[in-house]
């Protein structure tokens, strides 16, 4: 535990039990939050470095998303016999939002293992690389939102109920933090986690109403609520498209979230100090 207010910082390290685990986990979180500006800078550098030396730079993100949405929109619009005027806005928003979810979850498995040299060269709060992944993916999301804006503009649709983001985005941010922490720790301990998660996300992409509209399911739609990604996607997507979100969908989103928070908190308290041993 660190006390930065003291003139000389004091660091006491010993095995913890019970509340001690919670206190040292909380101290680690506080130390991480103080380093948030650094996490933000690192997240931005990740993107800058990936496109260093390319002509379009981060605009490649926007461009490849546009190509993806254009191609999927035409093919699936034809297959599902959808009217492009309603389908394309839905699809662009879905794919961009899913892009965020998918990469956050996939990046999570290697969040600690990728930073091994750093973790072995000094004491680092575990939440620092976690925040770095969130910032990086939020920046990618911002690049991709441009495509959604263009699609909306082309079809002369104005996003509805923008205020709803005030409620849904905080849930997304906290969920991102917890899911990265949780899968990151598991991935540090078991190297099989990252590939398992990657293939699960493939399945979820098709099972969750991302490229197809939830209305296509007529019977048994309530089972969709068991898919955590459905309700979480819906609380952001539906209001923007002008549909109302059922209370039960919000309930499912919060239920899944709380479960995730609890799991992540318990595991983080127990496993935090073992991360440098595992990686």
């Amino acid at each position, binding site marked *: 535990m660190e006390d930065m207010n003291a003139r*000389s910082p*004091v660091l006491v*390290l010993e095995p913890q039990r019970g509340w001690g685990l919670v206190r040292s986990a909380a101290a680690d979180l506080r130390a991480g939050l103080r380093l948030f500006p650094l996490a933000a*800078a690192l997240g931005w550098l990740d993107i800058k*470095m990936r496109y260093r030396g390319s002509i379009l730079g981060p605009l490649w993100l926007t461009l490849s998303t546009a190509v993806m949405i254009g191609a999927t929109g035409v093919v699936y619009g034809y297959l599902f016999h959808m009217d492009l005027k309603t389908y394309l806005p839905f699809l662009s928003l879905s794919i961009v939002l899913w892009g965020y979810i998918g990469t956050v979850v996939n990046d999570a498995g290697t969040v600690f293992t990728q930073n091994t040299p750093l973790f072995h060269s*000094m004491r680092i709060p575990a939440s620092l690389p976690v925040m770095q992944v969130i910032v990086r993916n939020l920046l990618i999301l911002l690049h991709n939102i441009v495509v959604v804006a263009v699609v909306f503009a082309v079809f002369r649709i104005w996003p509805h109920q923008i205020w709803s983001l005030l409620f849904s985005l905080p849930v997304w941010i906290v969920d991102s933090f917890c899911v990265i922490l949780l899968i990151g720790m598991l991935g540090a301990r*078991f190297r*099989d986690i990252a590939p398992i998660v990657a293939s699960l996300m493939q399945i979820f992409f098709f099972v969750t109403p991302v490229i197809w509209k939830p209305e296509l399911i007529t019977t048994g739609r309530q089972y969709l609520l068991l898919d955590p990604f459905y309700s979480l996607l819906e609380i952001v997507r539906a209001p923007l498209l002008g549909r109302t979100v059922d209370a039960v969908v919000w309930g499912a989103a919060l239920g899944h979230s709380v479960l995730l928070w609890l799991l992540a908190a318990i595991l983080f308290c127990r496993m935090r100090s073992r991360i440098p041993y595992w990686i």
Partner: protein
Amino acid sequence: MPGIVVDRLCIDFPLYHGQSRSLKRQVGKTLTRFAPSSPSAHLMHDQRERTIVSVLREISFTLRSGERLGLIGSNGAGKTTLLRALAGIYEPVAGRVRLEGTMRTLLDSSLGMNPDLTGRENIRLKGRYEGLSRQQIDRIEQDVQDFAELGPYMDMPVKAYSAGMSVRLAFGLATASAPEILLMDEWFLAGDGIFMNKARTRLEELVQKAEILVLSTHQPEIMRQWCTRVLWLENGHVRMDASPDEVLDVYLAHTG
């Protein structure tokens, strides 16, 4: 008052070799517990116990302001692990470590630098990791630039550096500001000719300013020169803890 108190410190490493680290094993173990006759039960029977390497066992010592401790011992004696435990990287499995004072760790020659970033960017990032203010970082950047003499390479990615250049950058950065407690591994003593002399002076200044030094090295003459106390580690135990001359005489006689 800066100080280090280490009390019965133990560090064990779980060994996750090949299959022993896999999820299959863990799932198998759990299944075995619930259903001892299930098909997966045989997976675990032979190697149920985790292999554990005990790297440090019951290490105790206290360092007060002004003490400079040298760590000596053969490879695998636990020197680097002890330094990392003091740095708070590996938290104790048993026992207790208490540190008071600002600390800097020079453990790994790459200093966790990112090869895709320029020298300048790496310097600024490192400063931010340590929570320094913008002015402090500016000062360090200037200082490292003067010392490492990288010229235009300061703004090139570190992966384009020659080995010597990256050592100069890492060394300059590592020694740019004086902490109260300095933990050093021996990599920084590897170097050549002119740079070594320059580095030696700079390092000596830093060591003088630090109130507590813990240094791991194989070079006895450096220990006699810099340290006031030497800890001889052998297989994770303290074999001897005394003044440099006393320990080194026995150690050198022992290793031949």
